[in-house]
């Protein structure tokens, strides 16, 4: 394939999260000759976690599609060539093709050194690369190793007939594997500290009930959206918790992009984010949340939701546990948890009364902050929840 010239540029397979290193286009939404604009959906990419609608970041005219449907390619591989219109991206003569820059943990670190062909073969044959001894440069697993493993009679895991040309790679098992790796990294590398604070949600519940009573059902707001707004506003005030730990230092995020853990019924979870949640209205956050949860559950996430989250929320909901001691999603430095709403006896003005309470927790990275900052964050959160009309 020739490199792009001055009149053209390539669009590369984007990284759709720290745990993605390859993907395959399963549907094109564009064809050669089409004019595209920044933000347009160009393809559906199958990753291990979900099918994701990927967006283009520059205006242009599609010249050529560079990969076949179903072809597994590494992140960064050019998948379409575009002709420039107007400015387009800077020319990248001699520079390697790069994806949109995002602060993400090292992908190479968790990956078994292997050749692309070996990975493809292994995926087709259901072989775990990690189980193989590599004979390539630097111990990399190469084609011959995979072929040897798949023909070895002693390997019962290897299916006899690698017949299906395009096997589904994603399953509850691969999702489990990804979460296992990511959370192991988090627990190994991040010195977590955990804080908790009970939030009195009486004012919030009363205010929401009144607000929702006067609105049609599609304009009603759930407590989850209020928690996202509150975390966004609190993170905007405590910027040390909003960003990424990269290269042994904290890199603050410029905007507050709040990710929300959405559990999937087939198992596992995904964490799409709401960009600039601190600058959106509560209604806008609710609409964004509804859209992302529906997309997550039907496997139609957008690429722009999957990278660049600066802080994450896990909300256990009405039937969840009382509180959660979360595990941070690296390279982020904070995770905020909301437990199940409970009626608890509380001391108010010297009397014991029953109040609705949600326990908020903060798991934070001790490399980036200390408990004092975490405590102030939770205090801000409590104050915001106490004044829901400001959300």
């Amino acid at each position, binding site marked *: 394939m020739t490199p792009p010239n001055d009149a053209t540029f390539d669009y590369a397979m984007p990284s759709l999260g720290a745990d993605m290193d390859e993907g395959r286009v399963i549907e094109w939404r564009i064809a050669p000759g089409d004019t595209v604009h920044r933000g347009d959906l160009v393809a559906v990419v199958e990753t291990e976690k979900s099918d994701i609608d990927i967006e283009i970041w520059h205006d242009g005219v599609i010249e050529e599609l560079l990969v076949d449907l179903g072809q597994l390619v590494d992140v960064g591989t050019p998948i379409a060539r575009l002709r420039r219109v107007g400015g387009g991206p800077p020319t990248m003569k001699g520079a390697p093709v790069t994806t949109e820059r995002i602060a993400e943990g090292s992908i190479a670190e968790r990956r078994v050194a292997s050749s692309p062909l070996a990975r493809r073969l292994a995926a087709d044959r259901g072989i775990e690369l990690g189980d193989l001894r590599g004979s390539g440069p630097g111990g990399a697993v190469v084609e011959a190793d995979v072929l040897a493993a798949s023909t070895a009679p002693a390997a019962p895991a290897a299916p006899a007939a690698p017949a299906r040309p395009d096997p589904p790679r994603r399953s509850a098992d691969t999702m489990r594997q990804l979460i296992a790796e990511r959370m192991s990294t988090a627990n190994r590398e991040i010195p977590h500290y955990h804080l908790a604070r009970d939030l009195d949600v009486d004012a919030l519940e009363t205010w929401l009930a009144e607000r*929702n009573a006067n609105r049609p*059902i599609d304009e009603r707001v*759930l407590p989850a959206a209020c928690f996202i707004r509150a975390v966004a506003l609190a993170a905007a005030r405590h910027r040390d918790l909003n960003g990424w730990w990269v290269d042994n230092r904290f890199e603050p995020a410029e905007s507050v992009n709040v990710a929300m853990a959405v559990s999937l019924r087939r198992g596992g979870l995904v964490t799409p984010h709401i960009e600039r949640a601190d600058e959106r209205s509560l209604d806008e956050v609710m609409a964004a949340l509804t859209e992302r949860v529906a997309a997550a*559950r039907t496997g139609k996430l957008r690429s722009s939701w999957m990278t660049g989250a600066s802080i994450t929320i896990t909300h256990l909901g009405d039937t969840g546990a009382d509180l959660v001691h979360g595990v941070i999603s690296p390279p982020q430095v904070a995770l905020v948890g909301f437990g199940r709403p409970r009626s608890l006896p509380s001391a108010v003005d010297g009397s014991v009364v029953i109040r609705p309470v949600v326990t908020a927790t903060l798991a934070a990275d001790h490399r980036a902050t200390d408990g004092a900052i975490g405590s102030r964050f939770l205090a801000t959160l409590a104050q915001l929840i106490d004044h829901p009309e400001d959300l």
Partner: protein
Amino acid sequence: MNTPDDIRAANPSIDRPGGHDHVDVATMVLSAIADVAPEVEPELADLDHDVDVWNELQLDSMDHLAVMTRLSEQTGIEIAERNYPRLTTIRSLCDFLAAGGD
């Protein structure tokens, strides 16, 4: 999908006076749930219409709102939040919708 016949076969008790309304409305309610949460569809045919459907199917508040929004759109019936506590079973939902709300 859950045709009225499937549902009737799975739930003989709903064929009672007025049961046809219930079956038709139940089909709509179950379809709305299946649209929002396709993964629970296999459980719908055998679902007891008198249990707390949200707990039984492990549907969360987002699913709940999505189902209620769909039903409201399809029937034109306003489902106020204050009615939520009593709309926890397929039967109570059907009775509510068949009566045109409250």
